[in-house]
């Protein structure tokens, strides 16, 4: 009897409380949110993750480029210092010339044949080009006979080669009166050579005005032939006189003729100026590339402003002195949050209505009672692929990097996610239950393409970052000309681009 009562009571309690319904879920949730607010904040970093990642990427990229550019500079200096230990082993007469040699052939191994100008060009490019420009009188007319005669051991002192060379008639030397030559090492060499010119020194012919030299091609082989002078392959005739064989000297013989030590300072000083020349040339590039990270607010009528981020690259095509065409590709996240409001455009508003009846199905787990849902909030999350085409006007491209740009954007959305939430006030009144549903539709992979529907306006200021890069701070505004995405929501963006430009800064 007691057991039966116990069992009946137990079954009744289970039945009642397993199906227990409570109307205070919303209040309970609010209380829980007060005590457990951390979850909401945890989503913020997810939105800002892109910005952080892009900023870190940009930072590492700029540091890497800065280090790389510094490395190039230090390599030039390293070549100079690496050759310096050789100096003490040389006779004093050649000491200054040894330093100068690096400008002509820095650490180049001896080349046997003439067909290697390209090889030498890699190492001697800047110097040789300078030589071409500043020393048009220089030439490659050194005869092969002279070259062969000049061949000596790799470590042979140039003087020996000079002594053993067939005599070449050398008229009085006149320095080339090219203005920048004062700072050019080759010209300095020429000047330094002047008083030391000796008959029979065919190397001096490089700077002889009477010789023919029209182009860099003419100069390059000439430089190479000077290096031949130290080639072991033909050293035997020169080595016949071991008494004249100097200690180790990997320096080509061409510049060892120069005895003047006073020119060395000028050469070293001029050497520091050399790397700037290619920079000036790169400034004239017609296309410049940049990468950038953007942090911005999305705005739309009725929506709360949402912080978002993006990244991309741009290429600037020079149209005229002050005008450039800027285009590129950007990936950006756009989020909109409408509380108690629907997007103002027609398509989005209509799209809610049909879903109202079906939205209830989502909440079938909560209640069996139907009611008319009321709109609660609406979220849109769009990951866009933006292709801007802007005209950029630089105020003074020679002196600074301040500009304004304006243009239009086209593009598509890689992913579109729209979430509408509804509440059921009728349900709450009828059954004492207030439930909420979520209606989510996701359009994936380039659902629509928009053409020139966003107006871009930006203002940029560039700052030098290293020797070959610029950091550009660019506030921008994107104004919607029409609805975007599958829901045709008119939204814009305003924020800041941090742009890294892979070109030189203006002088």
């Amino acid at each position, binding site marked *: 009897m*007691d057991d039966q*009562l*116990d069992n*009946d*009571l*137990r079954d*009744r*309690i*289970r039945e*009642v*409380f*397993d*199906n*227990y*319904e*409570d109307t*205070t*879920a*919303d209040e*309970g*949730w609010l*209380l*829980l949110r007060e*005590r*457990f607010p951390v*979850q*909401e904040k*945890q*989503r913020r970093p997810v939105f800002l993750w892109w910005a952080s990642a892009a900023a870190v990427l940009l930072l590492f990229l700029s540091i890497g480029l800065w280090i790389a550019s510094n490395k190039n500079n230090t390599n030039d200096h390293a070549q100079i210092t690496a050759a310096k230990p050789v100096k003490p082993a040389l006779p004093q007469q050649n000491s200054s010339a040894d330093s100068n040699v690096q400008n002509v052939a820095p650490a180049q191994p001896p080349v046997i044949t003439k067909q290697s100008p390209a090889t030498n060009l890699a190492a001697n490019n800047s110097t040789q080009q300078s030589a071409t420009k500043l020393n048009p009188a220089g030439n490659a007319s050194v005869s092969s006979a002279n070259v062969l005669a000049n061949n000596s051991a790799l470590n042979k002192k140039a003087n020996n080669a000079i002594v053993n060379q067939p005599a070449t008639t050398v008229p009085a030397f006149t320095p080339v009166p090219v203005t920048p030559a004062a700072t050019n090492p080759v010209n300095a060499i020429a000047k330094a050579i002047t008083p030391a010119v000796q008959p029979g020194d065919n190397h001096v012919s490089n700077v002889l005005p009477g010789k023919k030299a029209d182009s860099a091609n003419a100069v390059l082989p000439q430089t190479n032939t000077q290096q031949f002078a130290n080639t072991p392959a033909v050293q035997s005739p020169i080595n016949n006189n071991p008494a004249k064989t100097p200690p180790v000297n990997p320096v080509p013989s061409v510049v060892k003729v120069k005895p003047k030590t006073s020119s060395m300072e000028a050469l070293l000083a001029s050497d520091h100026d050399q790397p700037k020349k290619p920079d000036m040339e790169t400034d004239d590039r017609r296309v410049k590339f940049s990468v950038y990270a953007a942090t911005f607010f999305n705005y739309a009528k009725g929506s709360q402003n949402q912080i978002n981020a993006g990244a991309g690259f741009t290429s600037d095509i020079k149209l005229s002195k002050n005008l450039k065409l800027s285009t590129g590709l950007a990936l950006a996240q756009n989020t909109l949050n409408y509380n108690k409001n629907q997007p103002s455009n027609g398509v989005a508003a209509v*799209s*809610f209505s*049909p*879903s109202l009846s*079906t*939205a209830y*199905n*989502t909440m*079938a*787990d*909560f209640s069996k009672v139907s009611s008319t849902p009321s709109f609660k909030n609406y979220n849109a999350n769009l990951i866009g692929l933006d292709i801007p085409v802007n005209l950029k006007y630089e105020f003074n491209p020679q002196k600074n990097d301040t500009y304004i740009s304006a243009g239009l954007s086209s593009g598509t959305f890689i992913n579109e996610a*729209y*979430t*509408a*939430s509804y509440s059921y006030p009728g349900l709450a009144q009828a059954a004492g239950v207030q*439930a*909420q*549903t*979520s*209606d*989510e*539709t996701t359009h994936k992979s380039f659902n629509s393409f928009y053409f020139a529907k966003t107006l871009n306006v930006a203002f940029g200021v560039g700052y030098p970052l290293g020797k070959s890069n610029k950091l550009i701070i660019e506030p921008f505004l994107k104004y919607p000309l029409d609805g975007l995405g599958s829901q045709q929501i008119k939204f814009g963006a305003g924020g800041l681009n941090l742009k890294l430009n892979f070109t030189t800064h203006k002088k």
Partner: protein
Amino acid sequence: MHPPPRITEEEIVRQCKQGSLKHQELLYKQFYGYAMGISLRYSLNRDDALEAVNDAFIKVFNAIGGYNTDKPFKAWLRTILVNTAIDRRRKDLKFQLNVELDNAAPIRSNMGPVDNLNAQDILKMMVELPTIQRTIFNMYEIDGYDHDEIATTLGIPVSSSRVYLSRAKERLRTILRKEAQNHG
């Protein structure tokens, strides 16, 4: 806009694992009634029950990443809820262990036969039980714990668990019979 897909319990749990606040809310509201039904049986009053429910859901949200979706969510939630409610009443439980059981006041209710009992009637009956008896009765009879588990959870001997259960059932029978006489 396309008709939204029906959100299943598994989908809600999966989204909660990814930290979706909206789905946490959905989960909370979907299982709120069920949770309150459990919590009320272990708590002194409604406010106490609600706090226990919220404490339990906070534990659920924090630990849902490690939840095995192969097992029923309700069972997992029930375990967390019972433990949370007991933890909140643990001081009372220890105190009640030394209380003379027969000092409980007689119930005043208008409840009828067992089949007609509603949630309020049952809760009124249970309030008449000492906390330790109510807890053990709920754990054993309603929530399916055995005496070993109850003894471990409450930190009491297994024999004590049996005794308290026996006394709880006896007390409930007494209450029911008195009420039956009152209505009879």
